[in-house]
């Protein structure tokens, strides 16, 4: 990465607030900079505006005031660098796995042959090449989520937004997905903004954790995570991991009480 690239933050929010209609403020003025290569996790109780924040960065909703820049552009103009992974796999049930992974490429008018090749590569990456022709109803929840991840990564995003993608999975599956997502990041080098309720997940994945407090949503505490990469399952049983998790948990309790 050269100096010029580093200079432009991947995501830049200044004075961003959000209010739906005349309701209470969902986000109080928020300033935030996310640099290229970071894995930032937004952690907080319900109502702290973390999903709203993600939608603002994705350009799916507009801020009431303040400005948002993604890779130096407005979110709507930056959609080519963005990809979103939802809590539900949100697959199209009438398309098989391969066609689902192709969706983004298809919407961006990539030629059929090229997109099928690309989608095939992604399926290999998430180890699902054997179910390429299978329809979503035949898949387990975990496999559906892997299809969803492959679909998001197919368009070569440089910023990946994830809204509690593993919340519906059991703990073991979730741990495996956390390892998987770090492996994919290692290969593809995207920047990530990740929303979760789970402290362990936040510590395992992130380079930085932002604990948000509710009513209105605001930053309560920020923790850089000084654990090195690559991270493996073994990290979860180290004292450093535990110490970090304890600190973050304490801050989270503080955020809920605040």
């Amino acid at each position, binding site marked *: 990465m050269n100096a010029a690239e580093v200079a432009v933050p991947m995501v830049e929010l200044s004075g961003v607030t959000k209010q739906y209609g005349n309701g209470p403020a969902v986000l109080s003025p928020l300033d935030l900079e996310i640099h290229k290569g970071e894995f930032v996790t937004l952690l907080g109780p319900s109502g702290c505006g973390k999903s709203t924040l993600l939608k603002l960065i*994705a350009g*799916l909703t507009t801020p009431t005031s303040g400005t948002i820049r993604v890779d130096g552009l407005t979110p709507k103009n930056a*959609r*080519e660098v*963005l*990809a*979103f992974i*939802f809590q*539900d796999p*949100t697959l*199209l*049930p*009438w*398309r098989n796995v391969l066609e689902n992974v192709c*969706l*983004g490429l*298809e*919407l*961006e008018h990539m030629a059929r042959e090229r997109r099928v090749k690309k989608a095939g590569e992604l399926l290999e990456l998430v180890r699902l090449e054997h179910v390429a022709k299978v*329809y*979503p*109803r035949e898949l387990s929840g975990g496999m559906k989520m892997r299809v969803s991840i492959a679909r998001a990564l197919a*368009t070569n995003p440089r910023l990946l937004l994830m809204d509690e993608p593993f919340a519906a999975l059991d703990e073991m599956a979730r741990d495996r997905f956390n390892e998987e997502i770090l492996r994919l990041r290692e290969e593809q080098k995207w920047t990530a903004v990740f929303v979760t309720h789970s402290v362990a997940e936040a510590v395992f994945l992130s380079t930085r954790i932002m604990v948000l407090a509710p009513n209105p949503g605001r930053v309560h505490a920020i923790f850089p995570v000084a654990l090195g990469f690559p991270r493996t399952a073994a990290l979860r049983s180290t004292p450093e991991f535990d110490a970090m998790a304890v600190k973050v948990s304490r801050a989270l309790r503080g955020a809920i009480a605040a």
Partner: protein
Amino acid sequence: MRRRVLGAVNAAAVFVALLVVWQAIIWIFHVAPYMLPPPLAVLKAAGARLPLLLNALSLTAAEAAGGLAASVVVGIAIALFFARSRWVRRMLYPYTLLLQTVPIIAIAPLILMWVGAGMPAVTLIAFIISLAPIIANVTQGLISVDRNLVHLFLMHNASPAQVLFKLRLPHAVPALFVGVRIASGLAVIGAITGELYAGSSRVGEGGLGYSILYASTQLQTDYLFALVAAATVLGFGFVFLVMILEWYFLYRWHESARTLETD
């Protein structure tokens, strides 16, 4: 497969049992043939007038099919319009309920007056009576798309046409078939009812409804029974055809089709 054969055999057994009961009632209570003809007489009457019967059947089938096809095309078009905004739906949706609640028998004379007797009038009645379920179901299918899926499409800068053809319309296909299945039965009923009022007035040229009316005035009860049976078969045939189409389009991916596949 074995279970399916067994099911067919059982259904046939019920049919035979019904015929036996029917014949038994005639023997035990000495019912006059003009009140309740025996099954064999019905079969004979059908055989004797087979060309006439088939002619009536095909005419009614054509009217019902025409009305149904028109209501599918017009219904989808109206549903697409309704799906565009909640405001449009609120304003116009109540009027589609009128289509459903209007007593078709009451407006048939009006249509007869406007269009004149014959096939166009009957097709129009079949169309009117089968339109509402298509509009209601397709609209529901078009607007009940998962919000996140819409967001996903927006994230890829999808055009409105892409959202429509790659998301909303495919999502509405199962609902469309629910609507068409209901509408197909209604279209046949509509065609027959329509013929009672607006069928062709020349003997030998009317459809099933007209023939039923004619047979009843002539006290040809055996032929009347044959006509009613033909009408029932027609309605069943329509629904069955739609179910086959539905299975063909949905078996790969939709939950409703899966039970058909594995039964």
